[in-house]
């Protein structure tokens, strides 16, 4: 029983890591309807920024992670301004291929500048060790991830659904010209939304290094995972993305512990079944 709960906790913690990254994708792909295959590349930018800030510049952990989110946001905004904004009205396939091009360039860039080997991140002492919780012991870092994830879920859902910023984005996606004629600067709005999505990616990337490591192939390895989470959750629904991320984490970790010979098979079969029965995802609007 205890073992089972531990597996469950490990799965939930992994789910939170996925949610941190997929939350950003839920904004760019789900809300802005931009087929952003390069999302995990911005997460990688965050991961490398945090790891290098700590290792090379001796920045403490928390400021380094926040800095990483900022760097990822700036990188995202830059790409959006220079490249991505030209593709908002292009067919989906062109968006997919263009952003895959960005992924390849990012992999090459990371290999060239940082090196092909996997890197680790050092975390402060207060995140090492375990915290007792009744009969259980929870790894400090996992508890930290869960807290950050919950705070972020509340913050971002509130931001998108309760503020005028979120309302403006949804309005601009529904009818760009009408929104612009209401005096809203849609270009700036999109850049800001894209930066927000990338910031979340960067934050998720920075916090995930400790659990899953980081190497230049990260953007392509996690692309499939994140796409499954966002589409199973339902495009445009952060709540759905959250539920899907936790489910994904639990099914993945439990599946690998309990049926090691099946590997990811159970997970992909489950995702396929969900997408067949509900193509719009768990929380997506009825098609």
């Amino acid at each position, binding site marked *: 029983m205890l073992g089972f709960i531990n597996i469950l906790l490990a799965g939930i913690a992994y789910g939170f890591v996925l949610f941190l990254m997929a939350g950003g994708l839920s904004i760019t792909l789900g809300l802005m309807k931009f087929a952003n295959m390069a999302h995990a590349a911005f997460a990688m930018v965050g991961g490398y920024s945090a790891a290098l800030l700590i290792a090379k510049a001796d920045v403490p952990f928390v400021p380094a992670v926040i800095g990483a989110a900022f760097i990822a946001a700036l990188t995202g905004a830059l790409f959006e301004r220079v490249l991505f904004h030209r593709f908002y009205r292009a067919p989906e396939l062109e968006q997919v291929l263009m952003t895959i091009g960005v992924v390849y360039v990012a992999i090459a860039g990371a290999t060239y500048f940082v090196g092909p080997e996997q890197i680790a991140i050092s975390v402060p002492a207060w995140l090492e060790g375990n915290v007792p919780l009744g009969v259980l012991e929870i790894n400090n870092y996992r508890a930290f991830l869960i807290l950050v994830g919950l705070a972020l879920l509340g913050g971002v859902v509130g931001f998108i659904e309760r503020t005028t910023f979120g309302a403006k984005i949804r309005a601009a996606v529904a009818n760009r010209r009408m929104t612009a004629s209401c005096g809203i600067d849609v270009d700036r709005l999109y850049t800001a939304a894209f930066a927000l999505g990338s910031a979340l990616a960067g934050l998720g990337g920075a916090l995930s290094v400790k659990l899953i490591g980081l190497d230049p192939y990260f953007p*392509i390895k996690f692309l499939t995972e994140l796409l*499954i989470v966002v589409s199973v959750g339902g495009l445009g629904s952060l709540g759905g993305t959250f539920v899907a991320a936790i489910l994904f984490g639990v099914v993945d970790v439990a599946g690998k512990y309990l049926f090691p010979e099946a590997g990811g098979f159970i997970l992909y079969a489950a995702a396929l079944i969900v997408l067949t029965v509900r193509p719009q995802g768990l929380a997506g609007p009825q098609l």
Partner: protein
Amino acid sequence: MTAVDIVLVRKAIRERARWRSLEIAFWVAAACSYFLFPTHLVLLTQIIISGLFAMSLDLLLGYGGIPSFGHAAFFGLGAYTAGLLAAHGWGEPLSGLLAGGAVAGATGLLFSIVIARVHGAAMLMVTMCVGLLVYEAASRTPWLTGGDTGLQGIAMWPVLGRFEFDLFGKTAFWYAYAVAFALYLAARRYVSSPEGLALEGMRENPTRIASLAISSAKRKMIAFTVSATLAGFAGALLAQTTQIVALETLSFDRSVSTLIMLVVGGLGSLIGGFLGAALFVWLRDILSALNPVYWMFWLGLILIGMMLSARGGLVGGVALLSKRMRAMIGSAT
């Protein structure tokens, strides 16, 4: 429909089935390359096989407008089927090829029931899941597939009982060439048949096709099955000519590279897949030899550049060029 209309329609259908110079040029050039680059036969065979695979995706994406992120599933299924047959004592090439196509096609038919239900972005996700699922299945059954080390011990019998597979890849080249060309002819028939017309009609305007009492779901299922079968043939060819099957044949990477080859070559032309494969495989060979990371960098830049500028890939580019040339010649005389 009046008699004149019928004549016009027949003319339009004939026009669609006409051989274009680019198609003839490719198949002639491919045959000539055997004599021009006798030391690169393995690479040339790779190009033909990758081109055949890209063409199978073209039927789906170029003609049917159905994107797939997991088409390598069918390529790999064909490869493993042919490979397993040969590794377990049945090395006859043509029947192995047919078996590869049949298994991939049957699996495609099975998944097409799911595929016919979804549209747009969900289609990408569903096909991606199909691809990942088949990959996992193969990687978790090493007793059957050889797992990470790949399927080894493939021993091929001579083609038609006559032509032994040789070390230089001469037989492999002509075998792949003949099979790919035959399947190219078959695919041409398919796209210029009423079935192919209905498929394109569905891509252009699904509502109107439905009002003509043509079932979109059925068109999709047929296209998906045909495409999966062709992908299976391509995979079987790879297994038979290289005599090894790696997990890579099923990977997400292979699905994406094939998509890239097709788009670089040009969608909806059948020959585009082959042209794209030629450029892609050749460039990859040169650039990867320098450094695999260079290749990724340039591939990324080329993709971004292509999406920013020219539409229509190589086929579109050549069409544009020949139009301009004709205009120049026209104004000169």
